[in-house]
């Protein structure tokens, strides 16, 4: 074994702290060589071992009747009934996308798709959650264009529909965009394929693409701040080949169905190092791997490079002894590499051979199981939050019936509709094939969540072809920034509300925690408080967390070396069950004359003053899109979520949809009630005439206040008596009739006596809303 000792600089370059290095020496009983040091570096990165977040993740609920596989495997698996099992997970590719937007985003899609099909599931849908800086920056527009094109390139070629997502634009993400991709797959194999190696003497197969120097040390790169020098790390970004991945999914599923595969693990972050260590540790055995057998795409690579390469579209299998040839032939038919590169051994160690000698030898658990963990003290709310919380609506200029300052309410509505965060995302989803596989029931832009039919492509006669999965990704990060605990609860509540608006029962969650540095007390406070909120809300909605991803150090160091963290962004990916696809619901009005209702906190009530003490929900301008866009202010307490009210409102919405009463449903989020009404008008190409009772509140709070578990929906006149009687029983005080669907204009009247506050043609609103992103990038 080579015994060249690493220098201090090499230890730091591997992403390890001095204390961690001492621990490595203690565990090995000797100094590590360069290859071993590199292996520890990636395996002990936050990206792979969650050393900062693990104590916090423990509080998440992870089990339930429908949960077949929880955290710890490549993806979570839930039981959707009728023998249908669904694998799903979310993953980030933030830092690669900052440096090389196209390939960074493309390989982000590739990585999460492999996580899904490694379990034996065929990917049936992809969603993404994206954050960019403001579109007036040239660099942001480049990143935005590149990320969208990269997602499109990989997903379209692979043949999985990209059915939904969310996109926000805020200067907080200017140097550090977020690219989170969620994938959903339908299990095709009888057994769920796990990652634990088993059977001493069984061959270890390397399958898929070749290994090269691309993506060296990507996991360590992903676990450090971005800086002006990060461009130089472009070799840490991998290059994707979706065509190869398409062949790989077919070959893998075919291989799993032979029953000859004992275990499988995709090579994602930390490549061969991570897959061998995890397969060995999860199975309580060891793996001996011979690098000379690994197919390469370039010559002269050293063990360090083999082990840390993140070349894409590769997997590691443990096969039943004697059946490896059968598997190899399947892969060769699909034009893919497949070689026996190692063996399962009894000693629980990862032993790497290279040119006839041992290049590395490490106890598997030292790498992947007993990894370092750093519980930290959670500080009391930091000064920035306390300052923000001191803000009240009284600081705004007075609001009249006509408008505020020199703006009319009509102008405010149009301005908000034209902000890229609220505006139509058609320019984006039009580049994604969202219909391939012939199962997309609700198209992007049509509804609050995506709905995809659960039909096996392989076995069309399988049961349950009339059921569907609804999926959404949500997070209002400004809320989380202002109050991480409340903001995280709001994210879960919004995800569940979006599913309820299409008629789906929320089932389970995958989460992507995008935060700044946990070593900064403020960053850790945000992370800890958000995790507490996620745990509480997931418990309340009975949606266990089946896995996810942690992405820390989302900060950019400016040229002076000052860290600029992103907004803390815990993205919630949630799946729900639609038992009968004939009972789904879009967000747009359906017929003139239908009655419009508001569920949730009524318009005359905000509860802002009392909510914080009583645990009641609030509707507030604190943290709102209106406050940011119209008054350039990010302040206040974000809306407080009343979980009991959310549950009640969402259940009523789903019931109304299943009874066929509710013909459209749309949740109130950014921009509040006025924008939700405008969006329902635009989507349904019809108008609305509504009257709002206001009590003694400000006009802008009524129109643009956010929060309150609110859903607006429409019901045909003939069903309205049944619906109202149901609401009276179930939602006492938390429903009201607002008005009715009309022909061409949105008219909002409010106050006593009633005065017209907003009167706009749907055509004008639609124009502003549809063209905003296209105009912003055409500059």
């Amino acid at each position, binding site marked *: 074994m080579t015994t060249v000792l690493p220098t201090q600089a090499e230890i730091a370059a591997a992403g390890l702290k001095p204390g961690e290095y001492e621990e490595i020496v203690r565990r090995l009983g000797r100094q590590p060589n360069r290859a071993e040091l590199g292996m520890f570096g990636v395996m002990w990165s936050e990206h792979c071992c969650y050393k900062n977040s693990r104590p916090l993740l423990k509080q998440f609920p992870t089990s339930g009747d429908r949960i077949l596989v929880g955290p710890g495997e490549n993806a979570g698996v839930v039981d959707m009934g009728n023998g249908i099992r669904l694998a799903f997970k979310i993953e980030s590719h933030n830092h690669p996308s900052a440096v090389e937007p196209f390939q960074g985003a493309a390989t982000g899609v590739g990585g999460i798709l492999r996580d899904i099909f490694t379990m034996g599931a065929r990917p049936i849908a992809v969603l993404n959650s994206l954050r960019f800086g403001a579109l007036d920056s040239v660099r942001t527009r480049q990143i935005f264009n590149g990320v969208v094109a990269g997602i499109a390139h990989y997903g379209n070629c692979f043949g999985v529909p990209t059915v939904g997502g969310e996109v926000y634009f805020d200067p907080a993400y200017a140097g550090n965009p977020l690219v989170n991709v969620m994938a959903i797959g339908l299990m095709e194999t009888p057994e769920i394929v796990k990652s634990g190696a088993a059977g001493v003497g069984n061959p270890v197969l390397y399958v898929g693409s070749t290994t090269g120097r691309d993506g060296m040390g990507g996991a360590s790169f992903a676990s450090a701040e971005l800086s002006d020098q990060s461009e130089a790390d472009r070799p840490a970004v991998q290059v994707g080949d979706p065509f190869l991945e398409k062949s790989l999914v077919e070959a893998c599923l075919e291989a799993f169905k032979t029953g000859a595969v004992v275990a499988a693990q995709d090579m994602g972050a930390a490549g061969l190092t991570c897959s061998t260590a995890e397969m060995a540790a999860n199975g309580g055995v060891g793996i001996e791997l011979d690098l000379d057998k690994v197919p390469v795409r370039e010559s002269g690579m050293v063990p360090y490079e083999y082990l840390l390469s993140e070349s894409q579209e590769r997997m590691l299998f443990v096969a039943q002894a004697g059946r490896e040839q059968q598997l190899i032939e399947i892969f060769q038919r699909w*034009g893919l590499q497949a070689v026996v590169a190692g063996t399962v051994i009894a000693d629980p160690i990862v032993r790497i051979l290279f040119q006839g000698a041992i290049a590395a030898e490490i106890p598997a658990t030292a790498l992947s199981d007993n990894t370092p963990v750093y519980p930290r003290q959670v500080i009391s709310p930091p000064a920035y939050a306390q300052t923000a919380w001191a803000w009240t609506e009284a600081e705004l200029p007075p609001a009249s019936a006509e408008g505020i300052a020199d703006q009319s309410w009509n102008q405010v509505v149009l301005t908000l509709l034209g902000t890229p965060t609220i505006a139509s995302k058609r320019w984006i989803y039009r580049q994604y094939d*969202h*219909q*391939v596989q012939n199962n997309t029931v609700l198209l992007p832009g049509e509804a609050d969540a995506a709905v995809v039919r659960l039909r096996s492509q392989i076995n069309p006669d399988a049961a349950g072809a009339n059921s569907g999965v609804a999926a959404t990704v949500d997070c209002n990060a400004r809320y989380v920034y202002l109050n991480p605990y409340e903001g995280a609860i709001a994210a879960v509540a919004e995800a569940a509300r979006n599913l309820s608006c299409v008629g789906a029962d929320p089932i389970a969650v995958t989460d992507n925690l995008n935060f700044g540095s946990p070593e900064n007390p403020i960053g850790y406070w945000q992370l800890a408080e958000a995790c507490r909120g996620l745990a509480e809300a997931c418990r309340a909605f009975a949606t266990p967390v089946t896995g996810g991803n942690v992405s820390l150090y989302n900060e950019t160091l400016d040229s002076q070396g000052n860290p600029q963290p992103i907004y803390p962004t815990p993205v919630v990916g949630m799946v729900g069950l639609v038992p009968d696809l004939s009972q789904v619901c879009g967000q747009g009005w359906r017929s003139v004359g239908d009655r419009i209702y508001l569920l949730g906190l009524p318009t005359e009530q905000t509860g802002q003053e009392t909510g914080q003490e009583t645990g009641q929900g609030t509707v507030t301008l604190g943290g709102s899109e209106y406050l940011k866009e119209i008054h350039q202010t990010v302040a206040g307490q974000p809306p407080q979520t009343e979980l009991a009210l959310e549950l009640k409102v969402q259940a009523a919405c789903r019931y109304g949809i299943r009874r066929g009463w509710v013909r459209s449903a749309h949740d109130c989020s950014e921009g509040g009630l006025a924008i939700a009404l405008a969006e329902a008008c635009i989507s349904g190409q019809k108008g609305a005439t509504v009257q709002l009772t206001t009590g003694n509140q400000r006009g802008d709070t009524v129109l643009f206040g956010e929060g309150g578990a609110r859903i607006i929906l429409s019901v045909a006149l003939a069903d309205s008596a049944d619906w109202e009687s149901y609401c009276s029983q179930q939602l006492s005080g938390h429903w009201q009739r607002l008005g009715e669907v009309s022909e061409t204009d949105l008219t909002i009247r409010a106050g006593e006596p009633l005065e017209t506050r907003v009167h706009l043609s749907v055509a004008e609103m639609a124009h502003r809303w549809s063209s905003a992103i296209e105009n912003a990038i055409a500059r």
Partner: protein
Amino acid sequence: MKFGIVVFPGSNCDRDVAYVTRDLLQQPTRMVWHEDSDLSDIDIVVVPGGFSYGDYLRCGAIAQFSPAMRSVHEHAQQGKPVMGICNGFQVLTEMKLLPGALVRNRDLHFICDRVSLRVEQADSIFTQQYTKGQTISLPIAHGEGSYYADADTLASLEDRQQILFRYCDPQGSVSPQSNPNGSLENIAGICNRGGNVLGMMPHPERASDPLLGSTDGLTLFESVLKTALALV
């Protein structure tokens, strides 16, 4: 009638077509692997959408050399029906079973959307269940779907009534505004001189299942099926 659907490693609409022919239309359907050259049992060949061999060189450029496509060529020469959808259309132009070429979309982006089409001919075996001038809506999903041909070819396509579908607005009017990808003369689908080979960029198989909202595309499969049955 037996449908044969050619499967390249990068095909990704093959199963969607099979869902229509086998499950919705209840016709025997066989997936034809690209290395398989025996089409003797097949009546109607479909070359489906996707990315055949990755399409990194040029869409469909490599696919034409596969054993399956050589047999498809013979199948077409014998006057039997061949349908190329999206990538399939690209492959058929590469191997000269259809004239012209598909180049990158006008705005250089991939486009997935629903578009209106005017049925230009209703006496083709592929369109006889539509009416001439009818406006239908079908999904499109392509990055290289802009139809190109030289002036003589375009004139000849027009003269011989080989243009089957044109992009139009919902009212049926054909204009530059209703052209999603920059195709010359708004051409969305054509057939060969013999009338037995169809190429089209829109995806009729994605508009065949009532549960997904539209059956405008099913009519196309029913048309070719009815003709084929009448010939027996």
